[in-house]
């Protein structure tokens, strides 16, 4: 049974609050660090820009800056974990896991140490820094690793909860954050649970959805805008928020597939290997339905404003609506 939970009341207002998910990282780490003295934080010379500066200021003896050395970042974290600490290793996703993927594989996943990797600046919406800093492949890189949990929270509030929950579990975790200030979608009261996907938009009670939109990360907001506009035009849409990409909430996805019989996935990531692929894998052997993928089509990003970039790469509300219209035609 899909339940609706209390989202931000101002969700669809033009003055909806916006915050960086990195701020959620910072708040989450302070709370996690206060609750558990074993929590330590590492960065590779990117403390403030990845949101870990406040932890550094409050707990300097539990904070390590390894300088611009991302391989060391995760392997030192592995050693700290083996000595009983709960390490969060934070840098830009292009370097972390981009540069140090093998060390994550060997010293964290294979070696089974509960290190939490924070990969910041995921997606094209990183903006002016350009392609080299816009990570579009991290979901693919992390979800193929055994034992790695992959989280992609949709806003700063969900991010804070994700950090707190990650600190409590005995598992390697990858957490993807964005750079930009993005709309607050949830509220403090919205439940968050690792491994559980939740419906964030649905048609009137008793009405079956004609299409399901499955989205992850701050781009979920474009999916919600699309759902609202479609529903105003008489289409019945359900939107599922995937805040945990691995392990995927297969039950929630199958339920939605059975109901809507057509799906659109939305992610700020390459289409290859990301959320869309994970959903397709999940359905292919059990209940395949027509699908459309919103994401980056096998290209690199570039400099621009976030709004310009999601328009250029086909990831706006308008693109999602077009994909919905396309996919429902293939239902039989």
């Amino acid at each position, binding site marked *: 049974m899909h339940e609706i939970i209390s989202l931000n009341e101002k969700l669809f207002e033009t003055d909806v609050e916006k915050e960086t998910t990195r701020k959620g990282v910072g708040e989450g780490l302070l709370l996690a660090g206060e609750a558990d003295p074993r929590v330590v934080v590492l960065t590779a010379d990117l403390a403030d820009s990845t949101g870990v500066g406040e932890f550094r200021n409050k707990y300097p003896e539990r904070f390590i800056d390894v300088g611009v050395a991302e391989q*060391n970042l995760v392997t030192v974290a592995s050693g700290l974990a083996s000595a009983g600490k709960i390490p969060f290793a934070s840098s830009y996703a292009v370097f972390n896991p981009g540069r140090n993927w093998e060390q994550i594989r060997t010293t964290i996943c294979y070696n089974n140490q509960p290190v939490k990797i924070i990969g910041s600046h995921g997606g094209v919406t990183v903006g002016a820094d350009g392609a080299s800093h816009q990570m579009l492949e991290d979901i693919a890189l992390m979800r193929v690793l055994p034992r790695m949990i992959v989280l992609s929270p949709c806003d700063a509030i969900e991010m804070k909860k994700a950090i707190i929950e990650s600190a409590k579990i005995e598992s390697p975790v990858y957490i993807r954050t964005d750079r930009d200030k993005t709309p607050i979608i949830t509220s403090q009261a919205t439940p968050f649970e690792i491994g559980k996907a939740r419906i964030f938009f649905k048609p009137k009670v008793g009405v079956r959805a004609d299409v399901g939109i499955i989205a992850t990360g701050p781009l979920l907001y474009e999916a919600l805008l699309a759902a609202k506009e479609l529903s105003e035009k008489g289409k019945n849409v359900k939107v599922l928020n995937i805040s945990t990409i691995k392990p995927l909430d297969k039950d929630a996805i199958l339920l939605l597939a059975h109901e809507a019989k057509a799906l659109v996935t939305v992610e700020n990531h390459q289409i290859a290997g990301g959320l869309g692929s994970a959903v397709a894998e999940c359905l292919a052997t059990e209940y395949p339905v027509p699908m459309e993928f919103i994401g980056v089509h096998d290209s690199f990003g570039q400099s621009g404003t976030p709004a310009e970039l999601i328009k250029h790469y086909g990831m706006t509300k308008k693109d999602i609506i077009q994909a919905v219209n396309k996919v429902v035609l293939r239902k039989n």
Partner: protein
Amino acid sequence: MINEDRVTELKKISNEIRKSLISALAEAGSGHTAGALDMADIFTALYFHLLKHNPKDPLWADRDRLVLSNGHICTVQYSAMAHAGYFPVSELKTLRKFGSRLQGHPWREFLPGIETSSGPLGSGLSQAVGMAIAGQIDTGNRRAISSRRPVQKTIYCLMSDGELNEGNTWEAVMLAAKEKLGNLIAIIDKNGIQIDGFTKDIMPTDSVADKFRSFNWYVEEVDGHDIKAFIDLVEKIKTAVASVAPEMRKPVAIIAKTIPSKGVPEWEGKYEWHGKAPTKAEAEMAIKNLR
């Protein structure tokens, strides 16, 4: 200073460790011989004299940590552990076989006493640094105000000279000096070989001692086959470090000059023995003529 009788005992043990590892490799049919043999003396010194450990309680919280960064020589560690009582010596014949706890490169979860699943070179020192920093946090040595707390656990990191090619290694070297890790001792097996040939031809690294010193480490050099010199050196270092104020401490690098395949004259000095195992006939001959 260790006494001569004890040294004689340890030399006998190192020979037993060599015999066992040669048999194990021959039985497995594959594995890395040269480095395993040339580190047998240092492993003996560690497992039978220097390490604070308990073979019957491998996860004892207060134990010293021995991180084997160059995991490919694990057969000598398995052999030393067996002789020290972690598991029966007979288990060594399962080396590299399906279902064995003695995997081709160490798998931490399979064998208590192994501190990390190593193999890919260049990351062991970083992990050792992480363990050492955890130790500093736990003893309060990482706070701004220095206090003369004793160095508790020692973290030993065994590395190869070939692995100094990896950039990750130097990231760890820099951080260890920044963190003033007086509880960290790296031991570099300077046997002069790597897979493709001699280190001087593939990737020269001399002077290793100068490099570590310029990265603000304290460096000593030793004959890796002189058990007495090695033990006396480590004990001297630990005493010296304990008397230094935390903010003045440095990590320690011991560069151990070794002869690849030491103990088997026919194989000594030949880089081809880095990555191959002896046949049963070769093993029999080697054990018989062990020097």
